């Protein structure tokens, strides 16, 4: 096939597996960018009064590092897994709305490019990933840095919301016959819960950003204290999103390791219903704790106590999950392979992060820890030690299924140990630095505070982490070029995705599976049933949704609309027209015969 046709194939794909790969590759590219930002930060902090990086550039680096890692790396990496695996795990042939799925991806990619394009103008966002008002006002942030930020986040939010609606309908409405909710793989359950978090948490930040946009572009005073506005309104709206967001970041990796542990322990997940209910409780309570990010603003003792108690309560279902994972391993016939290493890394490192989190839950303790490196330590233990380890477990686990090749096991272990050691050397000392009083978001520090040793140690660890990532990249590239061909079921798995070839054919399942239990594939393999049951429906011709170019057209219209706010009104108008045109063609694309 000609190169152009192959390219258009990718640009117009509506196949969830291809979209998953697109998400994964893009997310990894952004992850590398975020990683470089981190290394620059660590280089600057390795020595007191360093002048490698100016204060202004430093502000841009830590802002973009946070924004990139959260919105452009971890979330889309999770999306890569949602996309590739959810239909396979529920026995479906695609998601409920394949073209909307493609639309979500293109909006995400263009949004990520948009926000990073700010670097080209020397105007990268620079007020922290959470952009507190009223530093973000036009008065105190004159340049276009924060315009890039708020517009970029609005665009990215649209992508997540659309995907959220899509996956909710997919999981509720496209399960194979017999797959009741309590037979869903844990990863699918965590995905479902995460989508509800997304569709309910993104609206508050959307409003917060809209109000910020009005303040900056139109001259309103929502966050302007001089005119009666209250900067705390921003904090509330932001954290109403921001706290559920951290569960959005951790629940999918928790789902991943809930798949990996049973496979490598050769035992079912211990207490499956309890793990599911804990996930639901975490999400539910996650909406009731947001002001624990605001203990130092003066909410008053009643509010502080309420949020403190709620935050400590959330520790319970979280802890319960950890016990369930340990109990899954206990008594199992464990195979120590790379996915399991990362899963074990997740449990141990997330535990540490959870403990520092519980410390933060006490307002008087948090008074000391807020805005110090103690928080930086905590958040990296849960987001890297937790989310990233979980995602890497997933990468190693599902790579054979996605790529049709095996990753090298020895390189995988080298990757893991370098990652594990580098991570701990980089971030554990930050607990000490926090306790010693080092604040966050400072571009340098004076000598004589005893901060040098741990900062230098942390920098060394960060570079070791970088090497670990390079090892992974090497492993990945070698695998793609000449890795061993992967069988359908390289790990002796338990769930439906292992019942089809690696990589799966475009239609996923030749015959829709009939599900009679949890861990359906395991039940089939271990002979509890005689033959693979056939679907009662007569095998109709497998009709796959046709490719469409309207998703990328609409996405391009949207980003042009956003770009116009930074340049000229007519650019926005052109973008709006393109978007509306694309939406109309999208809506009528399939109307001629079948109803769409």
């Amino acid at each position, binding site marked *: 096939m000609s190169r152009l046709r192959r390219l258009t194939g990718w640009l117009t794909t509506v196949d969830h597996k291809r979209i998953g790969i697109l998400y994964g590759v893009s997310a990894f590219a952004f992850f590398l960018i975020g990683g470089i930002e981190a290394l620059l930060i660590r280089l600057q902090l390795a020595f007191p009064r360093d002048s490698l990086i100016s204060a202004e550039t430093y502000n841009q680096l830590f802002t973009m590092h946070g924004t990139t890692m959260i919105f452009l790396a971890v979330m889309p990496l999770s999306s890569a897994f949602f996309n590739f695996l959810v239909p396979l795990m529920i026995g479906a042939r695609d998601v409920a709305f394949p073209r909307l799925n493609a639309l979500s991806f293109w909006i995400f990619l263009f949004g990520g490019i948009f926000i990073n394009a700010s670097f080209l103008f020397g105007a990268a966002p620079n007020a922290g990933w959470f952009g507190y008002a009223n530093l973000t006002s036009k008065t105190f942030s004159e340049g276009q840095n924060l315009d890039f930020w708020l517009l970029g986040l609005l665009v990215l939010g649209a992508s997540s919301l659309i995907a959220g609606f899509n996956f909710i309908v997919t999981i*509720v409405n496209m399960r194979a*016959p017999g797959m009741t909710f309590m037979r869903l793989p844990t990863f699918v359950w965590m995905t479902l819960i995460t989508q509800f978090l997304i*569709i*309910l948490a993104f609206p*508050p930040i959307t409003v917060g950003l809209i109000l910020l946009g009005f303040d900056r572009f139109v001259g309103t005073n929502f966050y302007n204290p001089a005119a009666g506005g*209250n900067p*705390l*309104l921003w904090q*509330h709206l932001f954290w*109403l999103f921001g706290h559920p967001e951290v569960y959005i970041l951790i629940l999918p990796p928790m789902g991943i390791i809930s798949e990996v542990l049973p496979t490598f322990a050769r035992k079912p997940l211990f207490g499956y219903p309890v793990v599911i209910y804990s996930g639901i409780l975490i999400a539910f309570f996650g*909406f009731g704790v947001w*002001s624990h990010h605001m203990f130092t603003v*003066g*909410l*008053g003792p*009643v*509010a502080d106590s309420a949020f403190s108690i709620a935050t400590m309560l959330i520790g319970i279902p979280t802890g319960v999950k950890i016990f369930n994972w340990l109990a899954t391993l206990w008594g199992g016939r464990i195979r120590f392979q790379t996915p399991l290493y990362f899963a074990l890394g997740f449990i141990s490192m997330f535990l540490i992060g959870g403990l520092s989190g519980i410390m933060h839950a006490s307002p008087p303790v948090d008074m000391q820890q807020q805005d110090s490196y103690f928080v930086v330590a905590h958040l990296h233990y849960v987001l890297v030690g937790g989310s990233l380890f979980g995602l890497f477990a997933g990468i190693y686990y599902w790579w054979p299924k996605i790529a049709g090749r095996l990753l090298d096991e020895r390189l995988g272990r080298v990757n893991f140990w370098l990652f594990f050691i580098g991570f701990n050397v980089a971030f554990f000392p930050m607990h000490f630095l926090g306790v010693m009083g080092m604040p966050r978001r400072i571009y340098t520090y004076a000598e004589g505070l005893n901060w040098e040793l741990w900062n230098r140690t942390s920098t060394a660890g960060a570079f070791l982490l970088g090497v670990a990532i390079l090892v992974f990249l090497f492993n990945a590239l070698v695998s793609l070029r000449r890795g061993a061909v992967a069988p359908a079921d390289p790990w002796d798995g338990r769930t439906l995705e292992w019942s089809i070839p690696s990589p799966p054919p475009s239609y996923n399942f030749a015959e829709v599976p009939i599900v009679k239990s949890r861990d359906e594939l395991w039940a089939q393999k271990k002979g509890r049933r005689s033959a693979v049951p056939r679907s009662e429906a007569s095998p109709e011709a497998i009709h796959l949704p046709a490719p469409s170019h309207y998703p990328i057209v609409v996405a391009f219209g949207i980003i042009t609309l956003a770009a116009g706010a930074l340049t000229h009104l007519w650019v926005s108008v052109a973008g709006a027209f393109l978007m509306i045109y694309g939406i109309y063609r999208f809506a009528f694309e399939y109307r001629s015969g079948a109803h769409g």
Partner: protein
Amino acid sequence: MEPTPSHPHPSIRTYLMVGAVLTVITAVEISVFYITALARYLAPMLIVLSAAKFSLVVMFFMHLRFDNRIFRWLFAGPLALTIGVVLALIALFLTGH
């Protein structure tokens, strides 16, 4: 996979009656607004009346009363969360700042 059982479908007459009730409630709301004697009870009365209108539109016009309960949960859950969050925000801003 069982077919959704066919549900009672409101007739045109029912819709028109709901429309009439909505009109009456709106008229009552506006009257109450202007009757100064009732000023003390204005807030609770208006909240109750508008909640009634809200429910009528949701249950009849949006058909939630007759539809599968999945739709009811999909709406009621987020609605409950929204009300909770709005009340919490109002409370937080009434105290402390």
